[in-house]
């Protein structure tokens, strides 16, 4: 029971993501770029990507590679590096269905899924074009309005990803994952049917037995598979481990400014020599 959860490589993890899956990814500091590259190699199609609550390079790369049918997001941005090139192109060309959200609505929807309730109410949103373009968001009357008058409040429906993709510092052979300070990853994992984890290294022993590490552990119950991916966030950083590689991020943005440049980038960094060590065929991964 303890060992089958640790898979040989990211290709074996990627094999668990089906075409059309609803996939949650975190905004930063825990982004599994190696696993993203494996998804591109696998050629997954039709993903519904939920960004928690925003995304950058990972979402942009998956969109550029044609993996994504729908994106549910509060923002796709390369932050200080600028706009996300493939995302911008896909929106303009109508090749991507976009469900614009606002950050706390994404968290709230995941929290509703976590609790197994159909919705959780949220303040704000009323009068925005976000709400106007989200027919899946319903506005109800607050039953606790003190004045007994009308007090509309938006009921955010549960967001239930099929899978959440997480890069973490540590995982153990029992299937437990140490996430550090990013408490939102727990919400993602709880809300998703399963989580696929890449980690920098395996922890010897049981993470739940260390009283200092245990509070920030996603327990194995929520974990579908783990693979070691050293510097698996590159070129993004991993909180507490290593920083962004700004030159590599800038190189991506410059390359992805055109569809051709993006294909060249994929050829080098996903299919090519830049990713050689990760290129194990999915079959061999079983």
């Amino acid at each position, binding site marked *: 029971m303890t060992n089958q959860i640790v898979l040989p490589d990211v290709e074996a993890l990627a094999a668990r993501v089906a075409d059309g899956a609803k996939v949650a990814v975190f*905004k*930063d500091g825990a982004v599994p770029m190696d696993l993203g590259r494996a998804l591109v190699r696998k050629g997954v199609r039709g993903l519904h990507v939920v960004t928690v*609550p*925003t995304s950058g390079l990972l979402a942009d790369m998956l969109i550029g590679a044609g993996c994504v049918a729908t994106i549910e*997001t*509060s*923002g*796709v*941005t390369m*932050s*200080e590096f600028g*706009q*996300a090139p493939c*995302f*911008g192109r896909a*929106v*303009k*060309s*109508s090749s991507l269905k*976009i469900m*614009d*959200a*606002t*950050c*706390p*609505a994404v*968290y709230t929807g995941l*929290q509703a899924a976590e609790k197994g309730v159909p919705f959780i109410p*949220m*303040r*704000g*949103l*009323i*009068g*925005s*074009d*976000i*709400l*106007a*373009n989200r027919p899946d968001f319903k506005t109800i009357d*607050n039953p606790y309005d003190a004045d007994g*008058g*009308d*007090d*509309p*409040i938006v009921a955010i429906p549960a967001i239930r990803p099929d899978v959440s993709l997480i890069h973490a510092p540590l995982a153990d052979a029992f299937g437990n994952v140490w996430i550090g*300070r*990013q*408490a*939102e990853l727990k*919400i993602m994992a709880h809300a998703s049917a399963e989580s696929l984890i890449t980690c920098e290294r395996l922890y010897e022993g049981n993470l739940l037995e260390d009283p200092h590490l245990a509070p920030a552990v996603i327990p194995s119950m929520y974990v579908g598979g783990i693979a070691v991916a050293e510097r698996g966030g590159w070129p993004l950083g991993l*909180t507490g481990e290593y920083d962004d590689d700004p030159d590599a991020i800038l190189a991506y943005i410059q390359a992805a400014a055109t569809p051709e440049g993006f294909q060249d980038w994929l050829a080098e960094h996903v299919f090519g020599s830049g990713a050689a060590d990760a290129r194990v065929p999915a079959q061999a991964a079983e």
Partner: protein
Amino acid sequence: MSGYRSEELLISVISRLLADCGHIAVGVSSPIPGSAALLTQATSDRPVRVSVIGAETPEFRTDGGVDLFDSAGQGRIDAFFLSGGQIDGEANINLVGIGDYPEMKVRWSGSFGSAHLYFMVPKVILFREEHTTRTMVDKVDFISAPGWSPDNVHRPGGPYGLVTNLCLFMFDRPNRRFRLESLHPGVTLEEVQDNTGFNFEIPEVVPETQAPDQAKLELLRSTVAQKIADPYPKFAERVWGVKAAA
């Protein structure tokens, strides 16, 4: 405009709007609002907490992203900053793009937390350096978050002021429009009018924006510069030549 940098003027203007705030939160990539919050902290006679989203420094950290929005929902955050690719005369902000939604001509990143924070934080300061008819429009193409709400909508927060590289507007909530509060040194009323796509109230006398005095400049260049170098090292180095502590 000698004796201080344009960033220092903007920081000083924003900081004056933050008087009486006990907890100021600052979003990602907001070094000028962040510096203004720190200047407020340095000059206030009571404790001021400054939270910077995504900061690594313990002092600036929130208890995670959910906690930030939850804190705002509870009223534990007194001031926040928002911007907009477009801002209109009713203080609606647009962070989504230009053209007809969803296949927009220009697509920006998205609305982030604006559709919640703009409702819940009492003093939201709009900050956009570029002041042109492209950014200050009559009507935004997409309302990421509205500037005002009908009376029955629960809204303890909303727009307070709008700071640009030309002037300071204050938002008149009952009348749902901006009032020109002051012109930055060297800027004329005509210049603001020519570069603003919306109508706004113009008082009979429009004062000049108060420049930062020597004491504030010294604080900025010492305490504030040192502290802001932690979340925003590039900014601190560019403006004040200060490097973050190792």
